[in-house]
């Protein structure tokens, strides 16, 4: 890991200070997993802080509840300090290391890379098709999309990017896991793993205690959890749509764009609805990806500025905007795929997806990787480490 990607000593010092205060107080214990995990420790080294910072999902309950929050003289801003540490850990674990700077400029990077991707895909397409074909309407029967970009070109381009992306995630996860191991050498057990997956899928700790959390303001609400669920499951459904489409293509030999149910079921085919599965999954997911990110952006814009780390605004917004655009361009493409603008829409949609993929390892998306890692470590610790300190 390059030296300049280390968490700064000042931040570690502040992290240590706030942990000592909270560990002596413990009033926020019931909000989330961070406080019980803190109570399993008496001292806080960088590895502990990096872990705890990623276990926090910034619901900010513990800020409003804190009698030591500014302007009180202890100036305790627990969520914000953890958010700052979190950003530094993203950089620390990033692969390849030099790309870590992208976290800081993620907003700009997302825009530039997306535009570049659109141009790149346009170039690939123009090299492999004619202008005439690009700007004309194609019928579904012939496999509309592939008239402008060959299936092979699509697969080669995206699998290259996806491989790189997955590699970056895996290396990042391993770096996180090794860095936060600390003194606890316990192994991951199947039950710990199942718990961590469950906690992740339910967003268990985003519900405060049960009535929601203090986001975007003091009043407990489930808004963020709902929008996050829409985003996350929307994303998963779109991913499933792609996977199913790929299986249809290679295993069942159903080539070409899947039919839109009810509209373009091919005459004489009884498996029409099944063939439409990718469209159904993609549409449901797409709806999630429109409402979810839009909602999260809206919540973010109304949020208490004392709690936000301004360094992360670009990164947060960049990712959400790209998710939204992915879905939007996808819907346009589905709707207009038999018209003459289809070619341009393919370029736009694929370009946005490419931009999303390229920036994912250096943007907000990685929070999911490390949060899962932290929840996994938490599940392991719950089984192996006692809480310390008693009256």
């Amino acid at each position, binding site marked *: 890991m390059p030296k300049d990607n280390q968490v700064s000593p000042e931040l570690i010092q502040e992290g240590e200070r706030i942990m000592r*205060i909270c560990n*002596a107080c*413990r*009033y926020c*214990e019931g909000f989330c997993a961070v406080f019980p995990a803190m109570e399993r420790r008496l001292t806080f080294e960088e590895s502990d802080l990096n872990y705890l910072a990623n276990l926090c999902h910034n619901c900010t309950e513990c800020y409003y509840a804190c009698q030591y929050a500014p302007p009180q*003289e202890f100036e305790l801003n627990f969520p914000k300090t953890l958010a700052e540490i979190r950003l530094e850990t993203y950089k620390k674990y990033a692969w390849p290391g030099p790309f870590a700077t992208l976290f800081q400029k993620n907003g700009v990077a997302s825009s530039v890379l997306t535009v570049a991707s659109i141009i790149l895909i346009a170039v690939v397409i123009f090299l492999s098709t004619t202008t005439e074909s690009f700007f004309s309407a194609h019928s579904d029967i012939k496999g509309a999309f592939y008239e402008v970009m060959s299936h092979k070109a699509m697969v080669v381009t995206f699998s290259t990017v996806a491989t790189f992306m997955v590699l970056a995630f895996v290396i990042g996860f391993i770096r996180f896991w090794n860095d936060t191991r600390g003194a606890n050498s316990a192994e991951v057990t199947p039950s710990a793993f199942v718990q961590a997956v469950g906690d992740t899928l339910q967003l268990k700790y985003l519900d405060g205690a049960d009535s929601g959390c203090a986001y975007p303001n003091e009043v407990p609400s489930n808004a963020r959890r709902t929008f996050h669920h829409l985003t996350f499951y929307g994303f998963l459904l779109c991913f499933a749509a792609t996977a199913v489409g790929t299986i249809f293509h290679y295993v069942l030999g159903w080539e070409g764009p899947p039919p839109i149910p009810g509209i373009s079921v091919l005459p004489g085919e009884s498996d029409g609805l099944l063939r439409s599965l990718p469209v159904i999954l993609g549409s449901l997911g797409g709806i999630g990806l429109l409402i979810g990110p839009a909602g999260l952006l809206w919540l973010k814009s109304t949020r208490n500025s004392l709690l936000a780390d301004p360094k992360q605004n670009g990164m947060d917004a960049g990712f959400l905007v790209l998710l939204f655009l992915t879905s939007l361009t996808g819907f346009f493409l589905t709707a207009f795929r038999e018209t003459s603008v289809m070619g341009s829409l393919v370029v736009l949609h694929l370009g946005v997806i490419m931009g999303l993929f390229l920036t994912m390892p250096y943007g907000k998306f990685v929070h999911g990787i490390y949060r899962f890692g932290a929840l996994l470590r938490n599940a392991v610790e719950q089984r192996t480490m006692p809480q310390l300190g*008693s*009256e």
Partner: protein
Amino acid sequence: MNLSFTYDVLVVGGGNAALCAAITARRAGARVLVLESAPKDFRGGNSRHTRNLRCMHKQPMVVLTEAYTEDEYWEDFMKVTGGLTNEPLARMAIRQSETCMEWMMEQGIRFQPSLGGTLHLSRTNAFFLGGGKALVNALYRTAENIGVDIEYGSEVRELKITEGRFTSAVFSRKGFSHEVRAKALVTASGGFQANIPWLKKAWGDVAENFIIRGTPYANGLILNLLMDQGVKTIGDPTQCHAVAIDARAPRFDGGIITRVDCVSLGIVVNKNAQRFYDEGEDFWPKRYAIWGRLVAGQPDQIGYSIIDSKAMGTFMPPVFPPIEANSISELAELLKLDPEALRKTIYEFNNAVQPGKFDHAVMDKCGTAGLTPAKTNWARKIDKPPFYAYPLRPGITFTYLGVAVNEQAQVIMKNDKPSKNIYAAGEIMAGNILGKGYLAGIGMTIGTIFGRIAGGEAARYAKG
């Protein structure tokens, strides 16, 4: 706030008792104004530092386990007060404590199971999720939503009372004086613990070395005004809840984190490096509230809790790091104590420790022999470096001197007649119930119950 008309109920104070009163009065249809002397960021008095309240219950209730009956509550209560109480009021508070949680949840207050390290309270004390500030936030939110008028940074400086009847109050806000009229007054302004000159009158100059654990706004001004207007007082001005806290704590508002919980695991010496009390007399949660007074009785009002590395990690970690040394002499140097004297004290203590099986979870009877004062439980040799010390000072939680009240929370005048329209709730009247001693979590119980009674009665009077 509208100063041109007469409010039904004026509530002075902005902590738990005040808001319970304001919400109850407003729900009973009264027009209510709350005047809180602290600015918004520091609203909520001592209540913002609390963590739980003590409730009786016949079966498991919300986060409380098993049962805690009226009789048991009463017994616990008698143990700490030694009978120095107004029994009908105390019994009423205990009985009504059963209804507190449900009412609080209706106001948006959330609860959590007892905190890590406080399992012994899981049956008796209901913990607020997020602690007292979260509680205070929820109460303010509810009060605002139902239309209670609230003014921050507004200190009431004058109460106009004739023959036991309140007519108006004068308060100062942003440097200007305003007068507000109301048909009834609820005083819920806390104790006078933040008023150092007053503490000095009762305690002498030693009070100069007291640390005030909670709000600096509890200056007793209202209590003083009521006393001047012929309201009867109750309690002894030197009685207060005082614990030993870390001497490095800020003068005011340091709250819960400044406590030091390792007294029973080691020894405590004064500035002459001498022990002065049995550190292992009883479980720490039952004894912590006597150590404030004990330290206050020592020269310069300072003590040092000393442990060795065997004890580390077995008590609630304090916020300030311990003073650490590899030898007793080195520790004495760091504490500016006489090294020879400290070595001798520890040598004698270690020699007096009797063999036994140490167990901090029970009264293990591991004691000293032939030592004065003896340590009767949890005595272990202090011999495993590194050695650690925490400096201690008296930390005042709240004072007990207050105004006398009846079961309708009306204040009683010197002629023993209740005032027509003046009510009191919370710390300002807690002395009616707590003549001395303290039972963890009873402060919030008293404030909630008397706050609700005061608000309800005040509204009834004003509307009636």
